[in-house]
């Protein structure tokens, strides 16, 4: 009754190709953005910013990056953590070497470096496919983290082996370092996510995205119709790593502040991001964000739910129970809806469109 496209006629090609062709969708999106920019900062306290919202935004960005690679180009990668680490460490190195340089520019430079590293480790994808490639990306994961652990130049010879985000300002507002306000960091992450999600959405609708999908669906056939596998696969690796690099930079500078390589571990980052992509829906930008919300919020919910209902569980037992529930939920989700949360969203929209007269 409220959500239908009847009567909305398009008179130009541009209007027909819009990301949100239906008026109600545009309103809904505007509402979401308004809530994110105005409403949430108004209500969230420091705990919410630090523990829930900022990690969610950063992980969404990383999940979009991985979704470009795995969902659109069909190349499974388990090296997300390493690529994020490259972004974080590159930002740290550039920012400490050139303190005057605007931090936003540094983020983009770090993204570029990560893209280059990603393309180097993506080069085997031209020869190797499927799970062989997935295991091969583990080589990147372990090798890169080992480098950041062993080569002291990467952490400026600090004795503890950690890197600490220096305080940096944008337009006179501190956005990184220990003194930065959570609100400033929140807005930084949010703006990055919005801009990059929009860019990704447009990329996958365009020529680049269509060639990624062609390669994903059948690479030989794609080659025959004139898509170059080399450029396509490497661009997927490059752009995906760029996103992961920016996410890694934000991860260090706007969230944790001070990290060791442990923070980019395969179990801490690579697998959770892959979960986000799969639970959210392969080949969907919205899905990446929904998946990130699910995977970052679920553990917080699981930790906080038992005390709320008055259940006291010992810490290590709680950790294992959490693990089991997490595993079970993943399996449950895959069985019930293998196409992810994005498909559920589509189904819901379809239902609303017909409501209340479904005939």
């Amino acid at each position, binding site marked *: 009754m409220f959500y239908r496209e009847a009567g909305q006629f398009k008179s130009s090609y541009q209007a027909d190709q819009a990301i949100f062709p239906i008026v109600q969708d545009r309103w809904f999106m505007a509402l979401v953005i308004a809530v994110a920019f105005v409403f949430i900062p108004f209500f969230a306290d420091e705990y919410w910013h630090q523990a829930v919202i900022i990690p969610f935004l950063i992980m969404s960005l990383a999940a979009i990056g991985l979704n470009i690679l795995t969902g659109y180009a069909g190349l499974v990668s388990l090296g997300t953590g390493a690529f994020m680490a490259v972004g974080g460490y590159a930002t740290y190195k550039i920012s400490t070497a050139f303190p005057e340089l605007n931090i936003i520019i540094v983020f983009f430079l770090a993204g570029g470096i990560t893209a280059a590293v990603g393309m180097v480790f993506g080069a085997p994808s031209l020869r190797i496919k499927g*799970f*062989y490639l997935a295991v091969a990306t583990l080589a990147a994961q372990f090798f890169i983290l080992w480098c950041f652990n062993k080569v002291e130049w990467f952490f400026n010879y600090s004795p503890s082996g950690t890197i600490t985000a220096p305080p940096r300002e944008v337009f006179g507002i501190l956005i990184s370092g220990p003194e930065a306000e959570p609100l400033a960091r929140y807005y930084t992450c949010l703006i990055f996510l919005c801009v990059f999600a929009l860019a990704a959405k447009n990329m996958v609708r365009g020529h680049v995205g269509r060639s990624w999908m062609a390669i994903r669906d059948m690479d030989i056939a794609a080659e025959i119709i004139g898509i170059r596998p080399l450029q396509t696969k490497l661009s997927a690796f490059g752009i995906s790593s760029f996103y992961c690099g920016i996410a890694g930079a934000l991860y260090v500078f706007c969230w944790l502040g001070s990290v060791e390589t442990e923070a980019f571990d395969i179990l801490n980052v690579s697998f959770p991001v892959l979960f986000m992509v799969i639970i959210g829906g392969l080949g969907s930008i919205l899905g990446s964000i929904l998946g990130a919300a699910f995977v970052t919020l679920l553990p917080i919910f699981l930790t906080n739910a038992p005390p709320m209902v008055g259940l006291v569980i010992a810490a290590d037992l709680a950790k294992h129970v959490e*693990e089991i529930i997490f595993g079970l939920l993943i399996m449950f989700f895959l069985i019930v809806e293998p196409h992810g949360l994005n498909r559920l969203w589509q189904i819901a929209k379809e239902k609303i469109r017909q409501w209340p007269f479904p005939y």
Partner: protein
Amino acid sequence: MEVFNTFFIAPFADMIGSPIFLLEVVIGGILAGIMYSLVALGFVLIYKASGVFNFAQGAMVLFAALTLVGLMEHSVPLVLAILVTLAVMIGCAYLIERWLLRPLVNQAQIILFMATIGLNFVFEGGGQIVWGSNVKKLDVGIPEKSFEVGGVLLNTFDLTAALVAAVLVGFLAIFFQKTSVGRALRAVADDHQAALAVGIPLKTIWVIVWSVAGFVALVAGIMWGGKAGVSFSLALIALKALPVLILGGFESVPGAIIGGLLIGIFEKVSEVYWGPAFGGAIEGWFAYMAALVFLMFRPQGLFGEKIIERV
């Protein structure tokens, strides 16, 4: 020049300088490699029969070892404990087939892969809830004595492990080649649909193959647990087995064995001779890099099925 020397000349000079020590390193590598093969074998069995890349194999090793140790702590005799653990693993195989694989039939491989990662969490969490998460000592009565043969130091435990692995592989080979169940398994591995068409019950076969993988996990758990104690780190040996898999090929049992041995030797030799030049702790990634370089020349691994692509 100095770099060239440390990486390309000094290690080889060391090797030629003391061949006995090199032999010792290589034997150490072979024995470690056997352990990797044991874990990789579990992956290969399941991948062959159902096309599932079972990430939970490492957690199954942990779970089997924990169950065994837990039972023995309640003063159950060893043989009985092993049998009970085996029964538990078979029960798990049945549950996995019924509640996880059957609903996910015909899904994309990556979906199944993710499902096994979920399974991985359940096995890890479940094993540690039931049996506790402290490091436990597993004593299966294999003596651990060192002796010398021709100047090379050997260990009875390692030799027993090698023997057990050899027996296990022989047993699996006979099982696959000579029994009717084994023939059915090979048929399923070859072509699911054709196997169904000639009346092989796919569901039963999957239960069997996951049970066999559970059995292999138990053996690997006993061997690794007996050597290093049973703790959470057992689950991480799955990560050790992955380069073995891509080197040997996902579908090949001999590939898992030979790949394991090669990776074991390679890892030990590189750690001993090139490790100091790199600054140590290179065993985490060296095997992966080696396997990766190898794959560039042979994308399906040593013994993997030749990849034929058609449009």
